[in-house]
């Protein structure tokens, strides 16, 4: 039975998952430099061991309210199509395996956010895990801008 290994994280009340193979590392929030004129969801750039990489605020990307940084806040550094960038999340929860059979296509009207970022929904018992489509998180600019 095919299965996927996922890194899961929390954002507000939802739980999300990303393919572990795309995750380069998970870091605490370093100083972030704002980049003027960048897309709104780009929170800024950080110094990752001498490399400058952009950080996307997933809250902004998904039209959620901003929250204060907490002790649990993290940046998940991802590598997608050779591009390295970080996504800022409220907390990283766990690493788990999920049967591909337990993954359903995204509902047409997805959980209050644009379905273009969603690859599917995973079910683990009662838990619902939103699987992110990383190719669209950064770039692939579309007209859907959500206001908070």
């Amino acid at each position, binding site marked *: 039975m095919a299965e996927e290994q996922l890194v899961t994280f929390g954002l507000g009340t939802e739980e999300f998952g990303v393919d572990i193979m795309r995750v380069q590392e998970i870091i605490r929030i*370093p*100083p972030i*430099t*704002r*980049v*003027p*004129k*960048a897309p709104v969801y*780009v929170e*800024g*750039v*950080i*110094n990752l*061991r*001498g*490399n*400058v*990489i*952009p950080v996307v605020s997933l809250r902004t990307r998904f039209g959620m309210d901003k929250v204060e940084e907490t002790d649990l806040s993290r940046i998940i550094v991802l590598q997608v199509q050779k*591009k*390295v*960038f970080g996504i800022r999340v409220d907390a990283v929860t766990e690493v788990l395996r999920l049967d591909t059979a337990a993954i359903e296509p995204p509902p047409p009207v997805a959980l209050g956010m644009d379905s273009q970022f969603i690859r599917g929904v995973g079910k683990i018992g009662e838990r619902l895990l939103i699987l992110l489509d990383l190719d669209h998180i*950064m*770039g692939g600019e579309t007209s859907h801008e959500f206001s908070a």
Partner: protein
Amino acid sequence: MGQDDKKNQGVDLEEFLEFYLLDSQEQIDKLGTGLLQLEKGGSNIGLINDLFRSAHSLKGASGTMGFTPIVALTHAAEDLLDRLRQGKIEVTLTMIDILLDVTDRVKAMLSQVEQRQAINVEYEDLVKAMKDLVSGKLPLEQGAGSQAFANGTEPGEQAGGAEHGGETEIAFDKEDGFVPFDFQLSNAEWKKLGDAQNMGHGIYQVDVALAPNTLMKAVRAVMAVQRVENLGAVVKLLPTVEDLEIGNGDGFFLLVISDEAPEEIMEEILGVSEIAKVMVHAYPATPEDMKAQGEGTMGGKEAAAGAAILEGVLARVSQPEVNVAKENRLVGAPAQATSQGRAQVGGTAPAGNASAQAGNDGGEGNTQVHTIRVDTARMDNLINLVGEMVITRTRLVQVGLDLKSAYKMDPLVSNLIETNVYLGRLMNDLQESVMRLRMVPIGTVFNRFPRLVRDLARKTNKEIDLVLQGEDTELDKTVVEVIGDPLMHLIRNSVDHGIESPEERQAAGKPVVGKITLDAYHEGNHIAILVSDDGAGLPLASIRRKAIERGWIGEREELSDRDIANLIFLPGLSTAEMVTDISGRGVGMDVVKKALNNLGGMIDIDTRQGQGTTFIIRLPLTLAIIQALLVEVGAEIYAVPLSSVLETLLVNRTDIKTVGGLPMVQLRGNTLPLISLQEKFELPAPEVPSEEVFVVVVGLGDKALGLVVDTLRGQQEIVIKSLGDMLNNLPGIAGATILGDGKVTLILDIGSLIQDVLVTRKS
């Protein structure tokens, strides 16, 4: 045939292509430089040998890859050089011309190979020209250099001539050292040999030694077998192709039945590239004969030591009796084959000769640089990591100081601090060494100019000496890559317009031979490159006239010589009377200046009537590191490239006027448009605006702009980093850098900011 070859060999050549291209380009550069030396310095046997070797290894490598046109050219060149080194013909100007032409054609071919195109560069004419040169003087001794070797016409420098004497001996009982190789023949095969002998055919054992580091041994063996089969039948090949394919052995043995003379067989096999040596011996036709011979020669061990065949081959021979003899006979050989290192062993040169040459290489201390090639991305990564370590260490220092204030008396703390200091020294050294990795000597750029000057001088019928100085001056790889074209332009210009014709020079009482000097040296954080000629100097009067005609300067305007000279950098000054085939190709000095400006460099002219002109180029040592002015706007810090900063002003807010909705300030009688970075970058406005603000005046070309900032933080060297694909092309931002505290700071793109203001103004 190239394609067919590849198929036949059943080997994927693609993976070797990069290696081949790098190596070939190196060889062709060596050839080019060497030829120019030859032209200047007459025939020096060491130099000619070097040239021969370069041509030879090019031929060998190209043959392996199946690039027939390159093989044809380099083969003919090799023949020519061979004649030359034998002293049979003299160096002539025509010969150098032809050989230089060969290097050009091969370069063109290589670039086609690089682009994975079919080679369609013309070459037969050159091959013919070279053949004519070879045969013209020596009509009786036509043909390839390999024949010359086989016939023993190699000059005395060839080592071990005596040992070769027995190589082609046919009757084995006369050869002390030869022990028939045990091919482990089946009865059927023995029968075949016996039959062949009865029918009067010759049976030969052919020992083939491959050049060291031969890449595709199996391919060589297959090619040799194919060639020999033109002359007879190959009964057996050992080691097998499969064994050779996995890289075993540095040679192979063939058992051949043929009516041809041993010399013919040898000749045929030597046609395959990367074959270092071939020996042909008569082979016993029956097992009994073989045994007799094997035992008979157990004593005479060393005589055949010339065979450069390694133990790797021998390990595969299982019959102990003959094995002993074999190993003995080869005792002297392995060292020879392995000691040659990178020296290319001539496919046509007997191994003895090759090793003698290899010895020379070491002795003369040839300009071989010991280098490895490393991907720049890996190097940049290393540099990044070291930078990060430096930052981490400063944090460590801070921790140490904090501990000290908390636990003053604890000796452990002073221990930590001491260690920190030592670590700091190491880090500095490490950082310096790492930065040096990117530095390359400017000689790599200079070296292509002697050829250029030579060709141009001959075209213009001038006599010019090019003097290179400061070739060891190092600068960043990024700069070296782009500096070539502007320099070439300046040199063309010097040859064409600077240096006078020999007659003019004579009339002016100058040496007939003109001189162009290329010099480079470090000047602080910059490198200065000088291109000077001892020619006539710039025609200042006519430049001035042209400038007046174009309305750039007033009729009565007083200008210094230097100012007038600098007018040539304005676009459109190149006039019909200055245009020639060489330098007037629609790209003028303005292009040179622009190219240099793009590199953050400057160019200046020093010209003296009748004495010559010097162009002085100043470039930053690296393009990756620039000087920047750090400015603060609100809570944010930005870096302004210092090369575009003209001055900084402290301006009272009341002096800022608004003209057409845009802020301006008066600066020495001119209005200077202003941009507030705080507004531009959408920063929150300060609650209490300060009375005075700083204005950084930046300029690009003749356009200037004032950036309104809160504070100046001073000047600093910064390393430019890209923001990556995702944040490319943001207006006003050129890139990012990491400051000493590890924070990312954005670098302003002055060009786009100025552009912005111009557009706003118009609309």
